[in-house]
C-alpha cells in the first residue's frame, strides 16, 4: 500500500490542462492543413498526385481546397511542394457538423457548432455513447479508448462510453463500414432510443479513408447507415484524443466559440 501511494505521488497529477489551458502537441504534430494556391506553379498538381486519398481538390486553382474528411495527415502533399502551397498547421480542431465544413483552404479554424438548444438541454450534462468499430484498424479505437484514461479523462465532462446501445444517446462509428459490419451497425443504431446522435470518427468513417472505393466497404458512416444523418465528423487518421474532446465539447456547447488556438 505504501508503494502504491509513493508511486501515486511520483506520477502526480496527469490530467491535461485542456480545456482550461491550451493543449500541447509535439513540434511535428500535423494539424489542420492550409492551401495557398497563390504559391502554386503553373499547372502543378504534385500535391494532389502525392496524396494517397485524393483529398486535395482543384490544385493550382483559386478554388483549391483540402478535404479533411479524406486527409490522412501523412504530410506527403507538404513534402511534394517546396513552395509551400500546402502546409500543416498545429491546429488540432478538426471536427465539424457537416461534410462541407471539412473542406478547408485558407488559414481559418474549423469550429463545431453546438447542438440546438433542445438537444443540448437533454444531452449537455450527460452524454452516453456506444462505440461501433466497423472496419476500424484499431487506430481510432485506441485513441477513443485513450480519451477515457487519466490524462484526457472524458468522464469529467459527463461524457462516457457505455456497454449497451440501450443506455446510449448516440453511436460513435469508426472504420469505413465493411459489408460484414453493416447489419450489426444498423441494428446497434436502431437499438439506441431517439433522440440519438451519430458521430463519425476518423477518415475511414467520414469518407472511407484509405479504403475508399474498396468493393467490400461503404466508404464510411453515411454510406453504411443510409438515410441516417451524421451529427458530427471528427477528422484525423486517427484523430488525437484532444481533437475528439474538442469536437465533443463544442457539440455540447461546453467550449466558447473561439478560443484556445493552438496556432
Amino acid at each position, binding site marked *: 500500500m505504501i*508503494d502504491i501511494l509513493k508511486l501515486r505521488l511520483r506520477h502526480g497529477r496527469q490530467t491535461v490542462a485542456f480545456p482550461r489551458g491550451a493543449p500541447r502537441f*509535439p513540434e511535428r504534430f500535423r494539424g489542420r492543413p492550409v492551401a495557398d494556391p497563390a504559391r502554386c506553379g503553373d499547372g502543378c498538381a504534385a500535391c494532389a498526385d502525392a496524396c494517397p486519398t485524393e483529398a486535395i481538390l482543384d490544385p493550382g486553382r483559386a478554388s483549391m481546397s483540402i478535404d479533411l474528411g479524406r486527409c490522412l495527415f501523412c504530410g506527403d502533399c507538404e513534402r511534394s511542394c517546396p513552395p509551400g502551397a500546402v502546409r500543416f498547421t498545429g491546429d488540432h480542431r478538426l471536427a465539424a457538423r457537416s461534410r462541407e465544413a471539412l473542406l478547408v483552404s485558407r488559414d481559418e479554424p474549423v469550429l463545431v457548432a453546438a447542438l440546438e438548444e433542445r438537444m443540448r438541454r437533454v444531452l449537455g450534462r450527460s452524454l452516453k455513447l456506444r462505440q461501433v*468499430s466497423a*472496419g*476500424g484498424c484499431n487506430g481510432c479505437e485506441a485513441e477513443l479508448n485513450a480519451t477515457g484514461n487519466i490524462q484526457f479523462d472524458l468522464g469529467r465532462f459527463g461524457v462516457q462510453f457505455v456497454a449497451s446501445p440501450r443506455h446510449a444517446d448516440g453511436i460513435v462509428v469508426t472504420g469505413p463500414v465493411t459489408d460484414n*459490419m453493416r447489419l450489426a451497425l444498423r441494428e446497434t443504431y436502431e437499438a439506441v432510443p431517439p433522440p440519438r446522435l451519430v458521430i463519425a470518427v476518423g477518415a*475511414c468513417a467520414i469518407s472511407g479513408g484509405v479504403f475508399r472505393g474498396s468493393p467490400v466497404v461503404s466508404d464510411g458512416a453515411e454510406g453504411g447507415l443510409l438515410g441516417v444523418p451524421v451529427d458530427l465528423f471528427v477528422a484525423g487518421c486517427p484523430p488525437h484524443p484532444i481533437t475528439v474532446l474538442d469536437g465533443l465539447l463544442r457539440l455540447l456547447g461546453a467550449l466558447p466559440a473561439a478560443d484556445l488556438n493552438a496556432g
Partner: protein
Amino acid sequence: MSGELLETWNGETVEARAVPVLPKERFREAVLGELRAGGRLSALFGRPRASAAGVLVTAVVARDGEGKLALASSVADGAFPSLAAEAPCAQAFERELAEQYGLRPEGHPWLKPLRFEPPRRAVRDAFGRADPGATIPGEYPFYAVEGEEVHEMAVGPVHAGIIEPGHFRFQCHGERVLHLEIVLGYQHRGVEALLEGGPDRRSLALAESIAGDTAVGHALAHVKARESLAGRPPPARATALRGVALELERLANHVGDLAALASDVGFLPTASFCGASRADFLNALAEICGNRFGRGLLAPGGVRFDLDQEAAAALAARVRGAWAKAKAAAGLLFDSPSARARLEGTGTVSRDLALALGLVGPAARASGLDLDVRRDHAFGIYRFVHVPVVLADGGDVLARAWIRLLECERSAAMAADQLETLPEGEVCAPAGGALAKDALVVSLVEGWRGEIAHVAVTDAVGRFARYKIVDPSFHNWLGLAMAMRDGQISDFPLCNKSFDLSYAGHDL
C-alpha cells in the same frame, strides 16, 4: 526432403519461377517434412495462374534455427490433400484458400469459412453455399455441445468496450467453458486486393492501416519488401530509427496491455498508471514523426524524419524515464499476491499445443517456444544489435503478462541506446527504380504481437500481382480459443487481453 524446396532469406528477392512447383502429394509431404523437422509455417497462400487453369498454392516455411526460409508451390484446382489434417497450424490458411479460390482441403478437421469475403474466382463454393458473396460472419454452422445444463453464450460482434468486432460463441456447463468458437471477418476491408496492382501512392498508408496498433510493424514489412524488390537498401541511420520506432510501438502496446490486464482483475493503480505511461511511448513516436502511432515515419528507402543529436539524446532520456515509471507501475501488479493469483494458472496453453497451433510472438514465448524474428531472421538494425529473447514456461495469463514486462525492459534499453548512438548519414536512400519483374520476396518483421509476414509477388511489369499479408493474430486466434477450454467463462476478458489479438489484422 529439403532439397525439393527453394531456400531463401528474410527480405531476399528471388525469381518467382525459381520456386519449385511440386505435384500435390509431394508438396504435402515436403511441407509436412519441413514442419516435422522443426520448421514453422509462416504463410500458405494462393494466386491464380496467369496462363493456365488452377491456383498456384505457395508455402513459406521458416527454419528458425538456420535463419532460412523454404518455399514450394503446387497447382490446385478443386480438391487437394489437407496439411491441417496433420498440422493444425495450417488450418486457417487452408480455410482461406477454400474461401478465396474454392479449393477443398480434403481431410481438413474444421473446414468453415474464415472471413466471409467474396470469392476471388467464379467456382463452386467449397462450403456449398449458394451465394457466398452475400453471407456474413455468423451465418455459420456453429459447433454445439448438447446435454442437460449445457448452455450457449453468444457475444459480439459489437462488444461492451471500445473494441473491434468479432463473435464469440461459448459452450458452457455452468461457469465452465467446454468450447469457445471465434468467428471473425467483420473487419474485412479487402486490403490485399487494394495493394495488388501497386505499389502506388496509397500502398504505404494501406500497410499502416492493416492493424492500426501495428502501423510501424506492417509498414516496415511493406517497405522492406519494396526495397528488396527495387534493390534500394535503406541507409544505416534509417534502419536504426526504424528499430527505435518498432520498439516504441512494442513498448506502447505491451504497457497498454499490462494496464488492461490490471483493469480486468480490478487492480486500479497499475491500470491507471500504465494506461497513462502507454501515452509516453506513443508521444515519443509523435516526437519523431508527428503521429502517435508512427504513421508517416517510414518510406521506401528509409524514413521521412530525422532527429538531430540533441533531440535524439533528449528522446533517449525520455524513453528511459518513461520506462522507469511504467516499470514501477507494472511491478505493483506482480507484487500484489491477490492480483497475481488471478493471473496464475488462468488460460494455460501448453508448449506442445502452442507448437502445434503455430503460435508466434509473446504468446508463443510465454509457452516456452524460443522464437523471435529479430534474432532468427534478423533484419535491419537487428543484424547488428541483438535484443535478447525472453522466455517463460507457464503458458498462462501470468506468463503472457510477465513476458511483456521483460520484453519492455529490453525494448526500452534498445531504443534508448540506439537513439544515443545513431549512425551518421542520410535517412533515406536516393529515389529508387522499378521493382524487379516476375519476382517474389518474403518480408518478416517481429511486431509486438509476433511475426508479421508480407509476401510480394510481382508480375511481368513489376507490379504486385499478389500481396499476401499474415498478421501474427492470424496464427494466434485459435490459441485464445484453446486457452479458454475448461476455464471459467468469467476469465474470458483476462485471457482475451493476455493475447490482445488484432481483428483487422486477421480480417484484412
